[in-house]
């Protein structure tokens, strides 16, 4: 077990506060009377609602289907009735409302029948579709639909990395999960390895979780099928970043603008592996997750709560916020965000993305002093695990010169917060980078819209032009035809010069021409695609034709009967 480990540049050592919540086992939440299930719980297109207000649903029933490629399904957390399908408060930094299905529990908690998946024999694409319909998304915080990550596009993935680093302070949900359910996690890993065709499986865990490492090692020793190596890595924030963990374990550096798959490694969170185990072995969709509730609460710990559980109920389960608390953080203190609504009855629900709720207290989270000017000390550049120059990116983001900011590889920033953490001027650098990124994204959206509008406008011009041309051509053709007909008539008259009445001859010719035209027109509307018909179909058509002629010739006095 002596694997050569690598160390990325930078990183910081924030205070862990892990012992606040990692001492007690994962507790289950009782059934609640009401769940709020957002349709957008993952990165990508939100799910399309499959239920309407008034519908009754069962636990595990799909209430939102994946829409588009980057999307996944959502499911009812319990049995009951859909009471609303409306924009509802969600845990999002904007504090804006998003489409949610509100379900009133009937207290029975009846489930649909779950069918375990025969993953070893199932067709790979069928298996992926099943995983999509079971709603699996990465539980590390980015919530990328798992079925896409399990699709080894063109192969080339030789290393499967399980992320048990959990480097953010305060959060312990993966720690507890590994301690208590190591064997199940490894079964999920087996499925991942099968789907990706990876040779090597590495499980990276920070060395501040010795119990988790021991439990995973014990489970790995007992697992014959997956030869997974549990690697203890040095505690250093942010080892849990996908690219950072890949580098630590394999020494492969992800190229700028790329993903870890570009260097042959795919990274999954421990929690995702556990959810995959439940999906495959039990056939259960993603209905719940383990979430850490910590900080200034009576009973900090980890709770297995159904997705859609209102934050207020989650806090209630943890004994409620203690007096003197100020605000709540969703996620960790480094990368998380403040919950907009600080009311006691916060109805924002638990989603797949929420791994931790921290109740803040001024003693635990002292207010940051106001930002001072940047002195270009370079502390942020030394701390940056992505080898960027945050002070340069900050300089241009602040001046809203986004092109320049981007030229300093803004989009390689993983928003880990190390730069803000070390900044002696207390500049909220990451906030600037998030601001710049979302501005650039909006510009790209506008650019895309403009390009689309331009092509559509150009096509409309082209279409109008074409129609005009066609009309002119038609007119010209008609004129030419008339001319030809006149000429033909004249010739006919000349040919029959001896016959008695030239006037009658001319009329006859016109009549003939009209008849010819009618005949031609009739021929042109003859049924199409009638060649190569099978005898049965031909016979059927004949019968229909016969019936039709009969109907046409049916005597009218039949009505009088």
């Amino acid at each position: 077990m002596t694997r050569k480990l690598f160390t990325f540049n930078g990183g910081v050592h924030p205070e862990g506060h892990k012992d606040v919540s990692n001492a007690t086992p994962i507790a289950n939440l009782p059934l609640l009377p009401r769940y709020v299930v957002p349709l957008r719980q993952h990165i990508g297109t939100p799910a399309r609602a499959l239920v309407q207000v008034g519908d009754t649903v069962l636990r595990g029933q799909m209430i939102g289907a994946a829409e588009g490629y980057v999307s996944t399904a959502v499911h009812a957390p319990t049995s009951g009735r859909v009471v609303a399908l409306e924009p509802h408060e969600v845990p999002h930094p904007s504090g804006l409302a998003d489409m949610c299905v509100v379900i009133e529990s009937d207290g029975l908690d009846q489930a649909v029948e779950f069918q375990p998946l025969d993953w070893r024999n199932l067709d790979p694409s069928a298996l992926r579709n099943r995983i999509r319909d079971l709603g699996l998304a990465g539980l590390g915080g980015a919530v990328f639909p798992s079925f896409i990550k399990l699709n080894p596009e063109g192969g080339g993935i030789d290393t499967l990395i399980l992320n048990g680093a959990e480097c953010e302070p305060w959060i312990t949900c993966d720690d507890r999960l590994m301690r208590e359910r190591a064997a199940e996690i490894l079964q999920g890993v087996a499925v991942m390895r099968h789907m990706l065709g990876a040779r090597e499986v590495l499980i990276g865990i920070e060395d501040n979780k010795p119990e988790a490492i021991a439990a995973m090692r014990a489970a790995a020793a007992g697992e014959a099928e997956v030869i997974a190596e549990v690697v203890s890595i040095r505690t250093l924030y942010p080892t849990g970043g996908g690219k950072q963990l890949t580098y630590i374990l394999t020494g492969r550096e992800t190229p700028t603008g790329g993903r870890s798959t570009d260097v042959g490694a795919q990274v999954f969170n421990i929690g995702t592996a556990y959810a995959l185990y439940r999906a495959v072995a039990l056939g259960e969709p993603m209905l719940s997750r383990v979430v850490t509730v910590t900080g200034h609460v009576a009973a900090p710990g980890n709770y297995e709560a159904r997705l859609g559980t209102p934050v207020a109920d989650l806090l209630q389960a943890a004994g409620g916020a203690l007096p003197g608390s100020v605000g709540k953080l969703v996620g960790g203190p480094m990368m998380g965000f403040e919950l907009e609504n600080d009311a006691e009855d916060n109805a924002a629900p638990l989603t797949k993305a929420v791994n931790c709720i921290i109740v803040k207290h001024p003693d635990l989270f002292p207010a940051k002093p106001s930002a001072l000017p940047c002195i270009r000390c370079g502390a942020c550049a030394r701390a940056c695990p992505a080898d960027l120059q945050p002070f340069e990116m900050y300089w241009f983001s602040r001046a809203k010169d986004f092109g320049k900011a981007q030229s300093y590889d803004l989009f390689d920033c993983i928003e880990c917060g190390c730069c803000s953490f070390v900044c002696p001027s207390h500049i909220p650098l990451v906030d600037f980078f998030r601001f710049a990124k979302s501005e650039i994204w909006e510009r790209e959206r506008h650019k895309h819209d403009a390009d689309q509008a331009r092509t559509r406008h150009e096509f409309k011009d082209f279409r109008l032009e074409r129609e005009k041309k066609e009309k002119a051509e038609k007119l010209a053709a008609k004129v030419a035809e008339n001319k030809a007909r006149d000429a033909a008539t004249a010739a006919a008259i000349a040919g029959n010069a001896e016959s008695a009445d030239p006037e009658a001859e001319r009329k006859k010719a016109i009549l003939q021409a009209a008849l010819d035209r009618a005949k031609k027109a009739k021929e042109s509307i003859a049924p199409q695609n009638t060649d190569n018909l099978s005898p049965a179909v031909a016979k059927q058509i004949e019968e229909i034709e016969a019936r039709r002629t009969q109907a046409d010739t049916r005597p009218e006095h039949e009505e009088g009967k």
Partner: protein
Amino acid sequence: MENYLLILIATVFVNNIVMSKILGLCPFMGVSRKLETAIGMGAATTFVLTLASGTSYLIDTYLLGHDLAYLRTLSFIVVIAGIVGFTEMFIKKTSPVLFRVLGIYLPLITTNCAVLGIPLLNVMEQHNFMESLFFGMGGALGFTLVLVLFAAMRERLEAAEVPKPFKGTSIAMITAGLMSLAFMGFAGLIK
């Protein structure tokens, strides 16, 4: 050979045409807003100045001589104008955006005091043909160098929190002054 190298170093650093001779200030302030423009302007000026130095040496030596010395300024201007016209057409063809961005400053190379100044200095210092070429090229390179440095600084200044009265050209002037002071540090590099 050493002689030419010395001329180059002297004109680029020690006797920099903008920083110590204070010539060619209008394009220096005018087209230093963006780095790309500054590089384009520098390249155009280098081309014009090198060619103009050589041509004006030939004209001065073989056409004008001592008898027609009074035609020096006049003929130099005509030659420079011709070369600038040529450069203008060339840039318009190869880089319309640069042409548009340089705008009025491109034809104004004609009246750039640096461009007329260097051929006249060549005559005054009695340089031979090669020396004239190197002197012209060195002067233009020095001009390009300070223009690019200055443009890079101004680009950063754009993003800086400058007090309102100093915004824009005023802070640029102050920066140019400080830069000039810094270039004085090269004095004495060559005797």
